[in-house]
């Protein structure tokens, strides 16, 4: 031991350091690039980059409040929010009282990506709201393996979507690129929690306004 020359293993050591740092850097670069917005990704109907790639309802209305709803289909609190405010938000859309933009984030894992993709497929069939409701009503535990594309397609049929195009759109993940664009836009909008609701670009009060029917309604009407 004591007669070992200092620096004897320097070559191996430096090689190992170079390999570790090199491999990590090689993985980092494509990861950073993959988080950039892909402007050539296919987008579902009613979607545009100006609205943060969200699914837009009543996009033609002016002088009504604009609701940006950021959610993840796997998020349990989003399911509670949907239960509490879903009917009201749908009535706002139906009665043309507000412009509503759904941003389907996917930070909870691969099944959130599947669900967001499937929701985009349902938007092409004009069934987004119904499918949205079905997904929350059948929300499994996070990443339990329940939301495979096959199951998501069946849930579509349960919502009354009969088109074969929907099934192939779900199974082929046609809107995968769009899903990551939505995520990137949400990151740029500083959304740090789901659900997050912006009314006319301003977040409503997290302490009081999300889970009270009256206060949420007041916030929408205040605009």
């Amino acid at each position, binding site marked *: 031991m*004591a007669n070992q020359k200092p*620096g004897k*293993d320097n070559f191996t050591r430096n090689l190992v*350091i170079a390999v570790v740092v090199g491999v990590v850097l090689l993985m980092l670069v494509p990861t950073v690039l993959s988080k950039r917005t892909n402007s050539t990704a296919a987008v579902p109907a009613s979607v545009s980059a100006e609205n943060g790639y969200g699914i837009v309802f009543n996009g033609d209305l002016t002088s009504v409040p604009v609701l940006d709803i950021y959610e993840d289909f796997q998020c349990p609190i989003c399911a509670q929010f949907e239960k509490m405010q879903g009917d009201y938000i749908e009535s706002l859309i139906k009665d043309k009282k507000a412009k509503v933009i759904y941003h389907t984030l996917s930070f909870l894992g691969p099944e959130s990506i599947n669900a967001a993709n499937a929701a985009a497929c349902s938007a092409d069939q004009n069934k987004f709201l119904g499918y949205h409701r079905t997904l929350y009503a059948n929300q499994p535990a996070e990443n339990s393996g329940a939301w495979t594309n096959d199951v998501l397609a069946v849930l579509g049929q349960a919502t009354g979507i009969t088109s074969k195009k929907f099934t192939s759109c779900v199974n082929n993940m046609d809107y995968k690129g769009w899903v990551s664009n939505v995520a990137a836009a949400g990151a740029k909008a500083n959304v*740090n929690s789901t659900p997050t609701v912006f009314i006319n670009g301003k977040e409503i009060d*997290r302490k009081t306004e999300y889970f009270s029917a009256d206060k949420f309604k007041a916030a929408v009407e205040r605009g």
Partner: protein
Amino acid sequence: MKKYLPWIGLLARLILGGVLLAAGLLKYQHLDKSQMAVRAYELLPISVANLLGIVLPFIEIAIGILLVIGAAIRISAIVGAALMIAFIIGISQAWARGLSIDCGCFGGGGQVAPGTANYLPELLRDGGLALLAIYLIRYPQSKFGLDRQISNGEKNHG
């Protein structure tokens, strides 16, 4: 005492390196959430926070691996100490400003329901890890590391 230093060094390396490696790998699996966690500290401009959310897990993984195999111990420990001190500053300012966030230390992160944030254990843990890192900067010699000339060369030290 000198005889035991390399064993303490080994333990410090494995704990600090293991924690960094685990934290980095968990964050790597959910990079969107990692970006969200950094943004939620409300300390950096959004674009910088988003970039850091991607880069940080990679730094943690690299430093974690280097510490576990015992290569470039002193430099890795300096980076590790810098990370821990940055985390302590981030968490402390979040606490002081009354933000309700998950530290996002091991994946997760973002805002949490008001009143459920729990900052003290996180600060104590990061403080302990910072001390380990500082120990390794001062005494980088340790058993079973690739930095042979240091681990065996007590002549380099003292």
